[in-house]
C-alpha cells in the first residue's frame, strides 16, 4: 500500500468524497442526493487573455436521480465511479471497453430485465461524467484509449520504469506516445526544438529525410485530433523542459483548428486546459498564404466546402485569432476559397517539405 503513488490516493479520496456527499444527502439531509458539477461545453468556455487559453466558466449543473431519465444515468455514473476507484485501488489499467465489461450487469426483476448499459457508448459517457465530477482526466484513472500520438527524436521516456529511447537513429520508426500518462515520465530531452505536425504521413516523410539529426529536433504528431497524452507531452516539453514548440498543420480551417488545440485548448476539455495547453507553442504553418508563396500548383489545391467557409468565418471572430497576421490569412482563404494539405509539397519533390519549406519557415520564425 505504501507504494501507491500519491496521485492515486488523491483520486481515491476524491471519489470517496463524492460517495460521502451522496450518503450524507440521504442519511443526514433526508433529500434526493445530488451532485453539483461544472458545466462543460461551448457556453461555459471562455477565453482567458491572461493565460492565453480556453478556460472553464463558473456555470454549474446539478445531477440528481429525480426523473425517469436521470435515475439510470445517475446510478450509471456512481457505478462507474466505484469501478474506477477499484481500478485505481488495485493499481490496474483498463481500456474504456474493459470498463464497460467490468461494470456489465442487468437491472429489474424477472419480468422486466434490462441491460445496465444499452451499449458501450453509455459506459463511455459515464467515464466522461466521472472525469467531470472528479475533475480528474481519465488517463489518471488508468482508463486509457488506444495510443495514436507518435514521437521521434532525442528524448528518453520512462514508462512504468522501462526506459524508452525515442532516438533510435535508424530514421525508420517512431514511438507511440503511451496513453497511461500516470505511468509515463520524461527522463531526458536532448533536442533543441519540438516540431508537431498534423498527420503521421507527414511525420514519416520528415523523419526519413534526416531532419531530426540535422536540426536536433523532436518530431511529434497527434495523428489528427491529438489525444490528451500527446497534448500533455507537448506542454511538458514546452514548459518544463523549456523547448520551443512549433506546429504545422494543413492549410485549411480544420487543420488550423487542430494546431490551435495544442496552443489554446478545446471547448470540450476546457476544464483541463491548465494541464493540456501549451500557449507558447507557435503555429507556423501551413499558412494559406504559403499556397501562393510556395507556388503549390493548382492541381494540388483543394476546393473548399461550405462547412470550411462557415468555420473560417467563425474563426475570424475568435479573440485568439485577432492578430493582424491571422486575420490576413483567414481573409485570404475566404477570398481565394482554396485549401491545401502539407502533403502537397511532395509535388515539388519528396524532400522539398523537409529540406526547403520547413527550414525556411523555422528560420523566418527565428527558431533555428
Amino acid at each position, binding site marked *: 500500500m505504501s507504494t501507491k503513488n500519491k496521485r492515486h490516493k488523491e483520486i481515491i479520496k476524491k*471519489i*470517496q468524497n463524492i*460517495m*460521502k456527499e*451522496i*450518503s450524507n444527502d*440521504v*442519511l443526514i439531509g*433526508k*433529500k*434526493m*442526493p445530488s451532485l453539483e*458539477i461544472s*458545466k*462543460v*461545453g461551448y*457556453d*461555459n468556455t471562455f477565453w482567458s487573455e491572461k493565460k492565453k487559453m480556453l478556460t472553464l466558466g463558473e456555470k454549474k*449543473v*446539478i*445531477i440528481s*436521480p*429525480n*426523473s*425517469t431519465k*436521470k*435515475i*439510470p444515468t*445517475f*446510478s450509471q455514473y*456512481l*457505478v462507474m*465511479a*466505484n469501478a474506477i*476507484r*477499484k481500478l485505481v485501488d488495485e493499481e490496474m489499467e483498463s481500456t474504456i471497453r474493459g470498463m464497460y465489461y467490468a461494470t456489465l*450487469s442487468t*437491472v*429489474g*426483476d424477472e419480468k*422486466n430485465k434490462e441491460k*445496465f448499459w444499452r451499449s458501450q457508448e453509455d459506459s*463511455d*459517457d459515464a467515464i*466522461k*461524467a466521472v472525469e*467531470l465530477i472528479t475533475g480528474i482526466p481519465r488517463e489518471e484513472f488508468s482508463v486509457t484509449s488506444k495510443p495514436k500520438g507518435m514521437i521521434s527524436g532525442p528524448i528518453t521516456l520512462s514508462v512504468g520504469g522501462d526506459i524508452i529511447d525515442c532516438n533510435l537513429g535508424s530514421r525508420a520508426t517512431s514511438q507511440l506516445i503511451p496513453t497511461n500518462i500516470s505511468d509515463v515520465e520524461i527522463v531526458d530531452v536532448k533536442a533543441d526544438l519540438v516540431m508537431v505536425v498534423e498527420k503521421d504521413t507527414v511525420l514519416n516523410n520528415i523523419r526519413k529525410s534526416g531532419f531530426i539529426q540535422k536540426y536536433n529536433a523532436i518530431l511529434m504528431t497527434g495523428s489528427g485530433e491529438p489525444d490528451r497524452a500527446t497534448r500533455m507531452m507537448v506542454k511538458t516539453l514546452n514548459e518544463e523542459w523549456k523547448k520551443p514548440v512549433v506546429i504545422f498543420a494543413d492549410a485549411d480551417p480544420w487543420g488550423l483548428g487542430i494546431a490551435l488545440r495544442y496552443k489554446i485548448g478545446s471547448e*470540450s476539455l476546457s476544464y483541463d486546459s491548465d494541464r493540456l495547453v501549451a500557449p507558447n507553442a507557435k503555429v507556423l504553418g501551413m499558412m494559406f498564404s504559403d499556397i501562393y508563396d510556395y507556388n503549390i500548383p493548382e492541381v494540388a489545391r483543394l476546393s473548399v466546402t461550405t462547412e470550411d467557409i462557415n468555420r473560417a468565418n467563425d474563426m475570424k471572430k475568435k479573440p485568439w485569432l485577432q492578430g493582424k497576421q491571422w486575420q490576413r490569412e483567414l481573409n485570404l482563404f475566404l477570398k481565394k476559397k482554396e485549401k491545401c494539405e502539407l502533403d502537397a509539397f511532395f509535388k515539388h519533390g519528396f524532400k522539398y517539405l523537409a529540406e526547403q519549406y520547413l527550414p525556411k519557415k523555422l528560420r523566418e520564425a527565428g527558431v533555428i
Partner: protein
Amino acid sequence: MKINSKLELKYQKKDSDTHTPHHLHKNPKIKYNKKAESEFFVDNSALAGFTGERILYMAIRELIENSLDSCEVHHILPKISVSIKQTDIENDLWTLSCQDNGIGINSEKVPVAVCSFLTSGKYVEKQQRGLFGVGLKMIAAFSTKDTDKPIKVWSKSIDEDSEYYYELRTDITTNKPIVLNKKIVPKMENIIKDKHGFKIVATLRARLSPITKNKIYDYISQTSIVNPYSNLIFENDDGKIIFERRTDIMPDPAKEVLPHPADMDLQTLKKAILNFSNQKVSIQTILSSSFQKLSIEKAREIIRASDIGNKLANLFSESDLIKVVNVCKLMKFQSPHIDHLSPIGEKILTTGMMSEYVIIHNKDQQLKSGNPREEANNENVRVLKPALTSYSSRSIVINNRPTIIECGIAYGGDINSFKLYRFANKIPLLYDEGSDVAREVVSEVGINKMGITKKEAKEQFANDQNSKSDRAVELLPLHIFFHICSTKIPYKSAGKESIASEGEMKKYMKFCLSELYRKVSAQIRRDLKIKDDENRLKLYKYYIPLIVDAVSDSIKVDRTKLSELFVEIAEKHVKKEITPTQIIINDNNQINNKSKKMITVKENHSTTENKKTKINENESLKNFSKRKDFRRKKIEKLTIDDFNRR
C-alpha cells in the same frame, strides 16, 4: 337463347374458315335480349357484394340488417337470433337462419319480398339500412342456384293473426318466386312466439375462410355497439354468443320526407305531376305539396321565374318542365329536413361505447374437453369498460342532402389498444379501412389536441402489440367511432365498405374528432402522469440498490439504513406530485361503477362527468404550463449529454 348461341358459333366458324376479317361482314347480327333482374344480379353478384369469400358474411349482414329495419320501423326493441352452421362439409353447404320480432311480412307479399329482385318497401326518401331490395333476394337466388334446398320462411305479420309457412325458390330467368309449399301454422306449433316476427332458413354453398369468419364476428359485435337496444344471439359451430340489451332507449325512427327541390330532376317532377293526374290542380300546388321547404308562394316564384305561363299541370311540355328544374337548381331554399335521418344519438352510442362487447374464443377449452361435438361453448363475450367516453355530432348539408356526422371516443379502462370503428346508417363498415375518409381524418387530426406529444405516446403507451405502428395515435388505448347517416352515403365502391369524402364532410368530421380529443385530454394527461410515476417508482426500486452498492463499496456506511432511507425519499419524491390527481381518478372510477349498475340513471351521470372533464381540462392546462418549466430545466441539464456527445 340457345339458337342464338349456335348462330354465333356458326359465325365464328365461318370466320376461321374463310379468314375474312370481321368488319367486312355486311350484316353482323346483334340480338337485343331482355334480361331478368334476378339473372342480372346473379351474374353480377359483386354489385351487391356477394363475391366468393364474402358470400356468407354478406348473407348474415343482409339478414341482420333486414331484421333491425323491420323492428325499428315500428319502434320495437329488436330481438334477433342468427345462426350459421355447416350442414354438409363435403359440398360446402351452410345453413343460415335468422329470426326476429319485427313487423313480419304480409303473407301475400312473402314470396315476392323474398325472391323477386328490386321489390322493396324501402323505396322512400328516408334513412334505412337496406335500400335496394337486393340482399334477401340474393340469398334466395344463390340458394336456388347452388342447392336443391328450398328457402323456408315463417312470417307473422303485424297486420295478420296467423303465422304462415312458406317453402320458396327463385326462378332466376324470370325473377319470379316459385312457391313449393304454403301453409298456415297452427297456433300451437308457432315458431314465432312474439306477436309478430319473421324467420328465414336458407342453405348456401360457400366457403368460410378464417378471415371471413372473423369479419362475421366483427360485424356482429360492432352491430351490438350501435344497436345496444337490441338483443342479439349468434350461434355457429363453435358455440353461442349472446349480446344482451343494454338500454331500452331506441333512436326515433326515420320519417319519410318529400324530396328537396334543389334535388329535383325531370323524372321526379314528372312523377310528382303524374301523382295528381286525375285532379285538376295547378303546377304550383303540385310543387308545394310534392317537395319539402317549398311554400305555395315559393312555387309561384319558381313558375314566374321559369316563364312557362299558366296552364294545367299535365299540359306542360318536357322542355317547360326542364326550365322549372333549372330554376330550382339556381334558387335558394331552406336547408333540407333531417327528420328522415335516424342518428344513433349521444345516449345510445354512449351506452354502446360504455359496454363494448368483444368475443373471446376459448381454444384451450376445446382441446381439454377433447370432443368438440360436446355442448362446450368455445366462445364467449366480454364487456369492455372504458374509463371515459365522449360524443359529438354535426348536421351538415352535402350536395343538398342532409348528413349527420356522429363521433364517439372511448378511452382507457379495459380498452388497451387502438381501434377505429366506422358506421354508415348504423351498419358497421369492415373492409377497405385504408381508403375510408375516417382513416384520413384520424391521421390528419394531431394527437397534440389531446395534450400529448407523439414522443410521450411512444414512450408511455407503446407495448408489444402496437409498437410496430408508426402512427402515434394507434399507440393509445383509444376507440374512435364514426357514424355517417344520410339517405345517400358517398360510398367509394359498390361493395359499400368505405366512404369517400364529399363536400365538407371531412372538414366536419375533423371538427368532431378534435372536439373529442380535447375532451379526453385531461384524462390522458392524468394517465400519463400516473404511468410516469409508476415507471419512476419501478426505476427507483431497480436502481437504488446499485447506487447503494457503489456508495457502500467506496466508503464505510450503514448499508441497510442508507437503502431504506433512500427508498423512502424516492417514494416521497414521486408521491408529492401525484396525490391530488389520484383522488380525482378514484372519483371517476366510482362514476363508472355506478353507471355499470344503473344504465338508465347513467345518462344523467354522463353529463356531470362531462362537466368534470371540463374542470379537469383547466387542471391539465396548469399541468401543461408546469411541464414547460420542467422542459426549461431539462435544457439546462442537457449539457452533460452535450459533453458526452463530443
